[in-house]
């Protein structure tokens, strides 16, 4: 299963005051607060950890068939950062373990989470678009990507949302085993797809 989350940093800076008293206590575990405090750029780590939790939450809400708000239940256990540009992290939720790959730029942070153990490939793209165009573009691009992976005409593919609001592919109205995740925030949108191993 796969989950992704994008944070438009300019938007996040306008919408949230991460230094608000009580903010950390609602979201971060003590280990995560240490990651933030140990960093030369605490604000980046705040949004990195947030996008890690959101990307894992997208998977967890599919697994449990429900939506809820419990950011501390998704705990980042380890974080490895390269020049504040790329990060690999491990997070846990109940008995599950997740591996998350993140990309950081001055403008956005994008995280892609997968459940351990990982077998399959990931197909993902991120783009900049006006808000009104993001949904249509996400659908168009992810269908184009999936159609070239499984060698089926895009016209035979569609996307619906399940009861938790998560998107999934259908081929001629048959739900597909591939897993799909959408995310958008501010001017950025991104999708991630993972397919069962017989589609190399």
């Amino acid at each position: 299963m796969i989950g992704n989350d994008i944070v438009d940093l300019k938007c996040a800076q306008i919408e949230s005051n991460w230094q608000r008293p009580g903010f950390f206590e609602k979201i971060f575990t003590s280990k995560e607060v240490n990651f933030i405090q140990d960093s030369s750029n605490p604000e980046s780590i705040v949004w990195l950890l947030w996008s890690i939790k959101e990307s894992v939450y997208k998977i967890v809400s599919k697994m449990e068939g429900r939506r809820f708000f419990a950011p501390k239940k998704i705990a980042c256990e380890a974080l490895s950062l390269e020049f504040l540009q790329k990060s690999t992290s491990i997070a846990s939720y109940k008995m599950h373990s997740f591996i998350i790959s993140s990309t950081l730029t001055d403008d956005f942070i994008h995280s892609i989470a997968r459940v351990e153990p990982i077998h399959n490939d990931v197909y993902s793209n991120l783009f900049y678009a006006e808000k009104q165009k993001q949904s249509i573009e996400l659908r168009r691009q992810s269908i184009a990507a999936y159609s070239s992976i499984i060698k089926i005409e895009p016209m035979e593919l569609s996307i619906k949302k399940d009861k938790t609001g998560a998107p999934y592919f259908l081929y001629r109205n048959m739900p597909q085993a591939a897993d799909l995740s959408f995310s958008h925030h501010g001017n950025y949108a991104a999708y991630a797809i993972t397919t069962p191993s017989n589609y190399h």
Partner: protein
Amino acid sequence: MTNSELIEKLKKIIKPYVQDEEAFENLSEETNFVDDLKINSANLVDIILDVEDEFGFEIEDEAMENMISVKGAIDIINQKLESK
């Protein structure tokens, strides 16, 4: 406090974070903060902190899980006010 008084108080609290004015105008108990009002999920924390400040009680993590819709918020606030 009646539910409609509570909803009015809640509307004042969430208004700064709402990104869909039409959905806000048509708000009902079923309204979901993120899906319907297009509130950024990071602002759910602000809403919870604002509710705590406004009503003077603490919302612990377990109770916080359902603060994702108008109904969820009203239920928690009612529970907390009753046990005050």
